[in-house]
């Protein structure tokens, strides 16, 4: 090293090559990424049908993220991890579809196109107050939504991402995020109302 065009870069590369560079990189990755494990697992739970699949997806997400940490330039760690997680889950759905295991592939990526048009109740009971539901019930209602709407609501209301971040994670324009949120929340509210009626 030394005489090249950019000695500090050469020096940096040399450091990255030895064991301590690698150690330092992994430590930095842990510091940056582990605080978001709850967020990653939460998103995984709403994407996958069961806990074991969600755990596997979360672990695979961290392994992939570490591999790509060198090329990672932002914007923020949380949406970056959630993007990777979503890719992991979608790849898993695609694999299952390819294996044609019908029970497992309810989770079609293009489910948006297969959803029957949701119809607004003609007489919205506007004077009725919304009744609180417990977490278990809300989780069940969310799980029943098609993925494009479910993931948008989860990223916004549970993972607390901005519209711009959601657009980046899902890979759609911000306008699509907005219309999916509006439609998804309306679907959720309709299911919620049914639940209110049944638990009187």
């Amino acid at each position, binding site marked *: 090293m030394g005489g090249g065009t950019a000695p500090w870069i050469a020096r940096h590369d040399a450091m990255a090559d030895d064991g301590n560079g690698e150690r330092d990189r992994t430590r930095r990755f842990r510091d940056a990424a582990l605080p978001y494990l709850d967020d990653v697992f939460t998103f995984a739970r709403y994407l996958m049908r069961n806990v074991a699949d969600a755990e596997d997806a979360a672990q695979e997400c961290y392994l992939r993220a570490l591999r790509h940490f060198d090329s990672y330039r*932002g914007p923020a760690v949380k949406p970056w991890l959630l993007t990777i997680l979503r890719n992991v889950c979608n790849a898993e759905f695609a694999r299952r579809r390819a294996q044609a295991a019908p029970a497992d592939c309810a989770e079609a990526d293009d489910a948006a196109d297969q959803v029957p048009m949701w119809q607004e109740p003609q007489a919205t009971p506007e004077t009725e107050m919304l009744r609180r539901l417990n977490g278990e019930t809300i989780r069940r209602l969310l799980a029943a939504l098609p993925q494009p709407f479910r993931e948008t609501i989860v990223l916004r209301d549970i993972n607390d991402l901005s519209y711009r971040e959601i657009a980046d994670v899902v890979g759609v324009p911000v306008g699509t995020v907005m219309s999916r949120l509006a439609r998804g929340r309306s679907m959720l509210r309709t299911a919620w109302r049914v639940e209110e009626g049944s638990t009187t």
Partner: protein
Amino acid sequence: MNCADAEVLIHALIDGELDAGHARDVEAHLATCAGCAAKLADFRAMREAMAQADLREAAPAALRSRVVAALPLPPARAAAPRRSWRTFFGGFAVGTMLSAAVAASLVLAVVRNDQDQQIAGEVVSAHLRSLQAGHLTDVETSDQHTVKPWFNGKLDVAPPVIDLTAQGFTLIGGRLDYIDGETVGSVVYRRRAHVINLFVAQHLGAEQRTPKTATVQGFNVRRWSDNGLDFWAVSDIDARELDEFGQKITAALHPPPPPGHS
């Protein structure tokens, strides 16, 4: 604005994602449309009910151990040489035709750059530490007149404590931290669910008159100098919002002169 537009935009209003102009338009529509106004209230109530229900999931301990085990730290190499300055300078002496002056300026740039990068790394580490439960603030209050005196006597120079709550950045407290071997003050703010640490000290890196924003390990770091103090703001909010934050701090430190009496 018609009801079809409003049906989409009321969600952006609830989520605080509308700019002032659109928010005004939606609110004007809501003032004249009872149906849309009722929907807004209804969706607000649903969002509130979801927040109360706590729909987040904690990663099971077993998963946490699995993930940590999958990210092993390679063993530290015994007596690993920190790439020594001797080698570095030696390289110049032997391998280059650079004049001493050029070499000196180059080294100066490298050293500064290194120091700033090191501080940026430490700032981000301090930010991450602060996010662990119970580490965020030593003095927790939204009252700037409580935070400011708390720093007095603990630091050579008390950092300015500015309340930006009205401007969307909630002051939540102050904390002492350690950066680059020095005790520094951090003024802690919240933006939605995001924490901003504003580290302030004398001589925290090279003086930087024009603000500079960089991404370090996925966090946005904005640094600038003002009146002999160095400011480092770090957060996971996006760079644009962090810039806005820095500008508001700077603006508050330099209030426009009062209008002349005449």
